[in-house]
């Protein structure tokens, strides 16, 4: 399996898959110059590897996403949803900052119609 390990920058999140724990982590801020280009490697990694994995836990802890990043994350959630429908065990832990009133609403919007375990977990405060 191809390695997936990107360090966070000011405008891009950390993206990392740990094979031993089976956890895919996305954390940080997301407002790259071109979100579609930035998320393309993650999308192709998911398309290549999801079917070979028994299960996958996705931990998302994004403190800020610009609108084109939101679009990319929705596309990624769609891929996870399709894969779950084909029998993969996929769950998502979505972390949000309880001091940010908009973050909970956004989390709930992401979780809508997803048809897989989507845990909204407050952090901070």
């Amino acid at each position, binding site marked *: 399996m191809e390695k997936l390990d990107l360090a966070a920058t000011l405008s891009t999140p950390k993206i990392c898959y740990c094979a031993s724990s089976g956890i895919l982590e996305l954390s940080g801020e997301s407002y790259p110059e071109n979100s579609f280009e930035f998320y393309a490697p993650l999308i192709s990694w998911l398309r290549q590897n999801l079917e070979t994995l028994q299960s996958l836990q996705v931990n998302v802890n994004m403190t800020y996403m610009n609108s084109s990043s939101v679009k990319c994350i929705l596309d990624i959630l769609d891929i996870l949803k399709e894969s779950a429908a084909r029998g993969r065990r996929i769950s998502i832990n979505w972390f949000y900052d309880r001091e940010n009133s*908009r973050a909970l609403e956004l989390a709930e919007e992401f979780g809508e119609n997803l048809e897989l375990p989507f845990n909204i977990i407050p952090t901070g405060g």
Partner: protein
Amino acid sequence: MHELAQLKEQFNKNGIMICFNGPFSQSIIEEIGKAVKTHLEREKIRKDAMLDVFAVYIEQMQNVKNYLSRTGYPAEVHDSAIMTIGRRDGRYVITSGNLTEKSDTAGVTRWIDTIKGLDDEGLKSLYKERIRKSHPPGARGAGVGLIDMARRASNRLSYVVEHIDDVFDFFILTAEI
């Protein structure tokens, strides 16, 4: 008085805290973004208000940058924009100004007028509808970005169009939080 001192006095009078004028890049957007955050942290405003100011600044700057980089005109003339962040009447005010082609000005002002006619629920459902639609890389225009700005600014968006010549306008967009 030296013109720079005059400019500074004018900025102070208008409550402008941060200003950038010139050609800008993603890295400049990031660095100024960092300065915006540092500044707001010092003011000890609520965390969600701080994030709204930061988010509106990012969407606005990236919209302007994407637009200017797609027009294909010489960089030295058309990559240039001005942006200010300030405080006025207890609100944070983010303003950008850049050249737009007249035909594009009409499109963006129509879109802002549409957005301004919506309430919170209307904005939310338009956002959800638009964000789901495929958004090919290279698409022109600021569809979802402006809705996001409007949601965060409780729809306090306004624009001014200054006529430049037969081809160009100077388009000024203001968001208040």
